[in-house]
């Protein structure tokens, strides 16, 4: 049981290190066990050092930096043991455009191994998708789905111009 845990932990930790370095353009991140001898007796911490900074106590990181570390861990687990599908709701909400683009590019790459469903308001994320669905709320309070939306049909205010009825 312990051997099996270490096998999984080491693989995911290696992935985490690589993926965070790629996503953040050169930062360092790794997972650390509170109790190396008996992992089940303690927890697991995340250590992050964004590019050009000292290793930080995770609570001093910014909203965007925390998001990038969280997402890198999700992708690290996916690389080891992909789930059949992912439903990610506005994961880009803290990200500036550069980081949002890096994340959606990585999702695009990963989407050949698993199905990704992303909810987003930002064009920088939407533009990487294979299919885009629009959702609108009708006057009478009923939601409607608009089939494949063309990115150019999304107005500057995020409104979706619907062809036909």
């Amino acid at each position, binding site marked *: 049981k312990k051997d099996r*845990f270490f*096998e*999984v932990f080491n693989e*995911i930790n290696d992935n985490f290190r690589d993926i965070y370095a790629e996503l953040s353009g050169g930062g360092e991140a790794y997972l650390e*066990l*509170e109790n190396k001898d008996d*992992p*089940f007796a*303690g*927890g*697991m*911490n*995340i250590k992050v050092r964004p590019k050009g900074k000292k290793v930080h106590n*995770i609570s001093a*990181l910014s909203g965007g930096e*925390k*998001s990038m*570390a*969280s997402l890198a*861990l*999700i992708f690290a687990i996916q690389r080891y*043991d992909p*789930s*059949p*599908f*992912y*439903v*990610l*709701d506005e*994961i880009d*909400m*803290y990200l500036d455009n550069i980081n949002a683009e890096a994340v959606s590019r990585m*999702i695009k790459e990963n989407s*050949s191994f698993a*199905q*990704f*469903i*992303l*909810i987003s*308001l930002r064009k920088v*994320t*939407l533009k990487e*998708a*294979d*299919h*885009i*669905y*629009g*959702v*609108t*709320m009708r*006057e*009478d*309070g*009923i*939601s*409607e*789905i608009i089939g494949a939306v063309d990115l150019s049909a999304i107005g500057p205010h*995020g409104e*979706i111009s619907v062809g036909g009825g």
Partner: protein
Amino acid sequence: MENFKSFGRKVVIPFFPGFTAITGPNGSGKSNIGDAIRFVLGPKSPKAIRAERLTDLIFNGGKNKKRPANYCEVSLVFDNRDRKLPVDSDTVVLTRRIKRAPLKDNPDNFYSYFYINGKSASLTDFVNILTKARISGEGYNLVKQGDVTSLVEMGPVERRKIIDEIA
């Protein structure tokens, strides 16, 4: 999906392989689609699908208050050619349905129905099938709105448990 939250009609959303994005104005119903998927996967508590009681999931009639719906139903259609789900068929349709059954002392009473490929089943059947395929209503692969930093902010032991589940 039929009468689920703000989707007051029958709606089918095909999810193709690859990267699908969903967009639209605030309050249009995007996160409700995520809730519909989680609803079928059987989360432990209604809070995980932003409801206090399961009857909150049934379309409430929208603006013209006359006709709140009586039931809501969501089906997830899985491509099971790789037999990840321990069911012997190429497609597996998991359907969950909630029907209002008001009683004198409890207006929010309801009946819950589960179906696997159209045949009546139970929540335990769902959970058994899904756990074998390592799918759950609370998995790390489902990130709710506002939760993107949760892996960093959760406690160390809870975080370690994610590795335990994979091992």
